[in-house]
């Protein structure tokens, strides 16, 4: 399943909004099959911050461990946020091959 974050808005900043987004998306997540890959697409997102991401992406990474991926993004806020969450939680968001830039 491909999850397009722009469908939740273009300004993804607060914990509250991240929590609400995940709760609202639960019925769709129930459709994911046991072996299906879950990919996150950041295209169309203007602003991204750790508070929102920690409420949405971190739980999904834990839930779909081994079949969760993030797509490449040129948006520096996306890149810095992903790297920051990895650092504080000692986790790793698997990237697609194109996503080589960890700076």
């Amino acid at each position, binding site marked *: 399943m491909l999850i397009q974050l722009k469908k939740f*808005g*273009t*300004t993804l*900043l*607060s*914990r*509250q*909004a991240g929590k609400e987004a995940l709760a609202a998306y639960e019925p769709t997540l129930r459709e994911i099959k046991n072996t299906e890959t879950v990919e996150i697409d950041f295209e169309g997102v*203007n*602003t*991204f*911050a*750790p*508070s929102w991401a*920690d*409420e949405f992406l971190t739980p999904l990474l834990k839930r779909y461990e081994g079949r969760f991926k993030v797509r490449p993004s040129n*948006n*520096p*806020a*996306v890149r*810095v*946020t992903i790297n*920051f969450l990895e*650092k*504080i*939680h000692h986790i790793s968001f698997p990237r697609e091959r194109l996503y080589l830039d960890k700076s």
Partner: protein
Amino acid sequence: MDHNLITIQEAAEKLGISLQTLRRWDTNGKLKAIRSGPYSHRYYKREDVEKVAAQYSKNLFHEAQSWVTTPKPIEPAPHVYCPNSGIFQARISNFETQPAKIPHLQTWCSLIIAVTGEIGNNSFDHNLGNWPDIPGIFFGYDLAKKHIVLADRGQGILKTLKRVRQELQTHTEALKVAFTEIISGRSPESRGNGLKFIRQIISTYDISLRFLSGNAQVNLRKRSEKLLIQQKSRSIHGCLAFITFS
């Protein structure tokens, strides 16, 4: 007494500054007092104070600083006041498109918004249900001057961090922890760490931050990891942030 004269206490409250500052301004001529009464107390012409207050309000930082220092809780002006996180979200979404109009900011303006969002949302996350007086935040920006100001009259960093780090005693210690230590497992809180994220961005991009809480101030200069923390003589309610970018 002349009705056009007000006491030094009233003048201080109108301007949101200390009595000491007013005395200094009297000495250096910035705002002259009139000596009156048997004890030669300082009084001020109402119009002189209003003139200075008008100049002051043109400066967003001073406007926010006045709001977080005044002992009397009052709501900020409507154009900078976000009483709840929904209004902040709406205003930051509107603001989001602005820095991108400045050509050289186009590639990284999302980080300016992310920094602003983390500071503003931190205020709401850490004070929800516990606002000491005025709920919500001050959020203003001046793109010509390339700065953003955020403030709240919340509990401040020390009180918030004490819930998970009870040994903290001073505002300077609390700010140091907030900007440097990754606090994991803040049970029952899952929030925090936003200020570390901001420090990481500042170390790489042309963004600077002055952040005050209680009687402590942190300065983070663009493209530097150096943290300059100092104790101030005067304390503020909650937090005050001044972001500049170039």
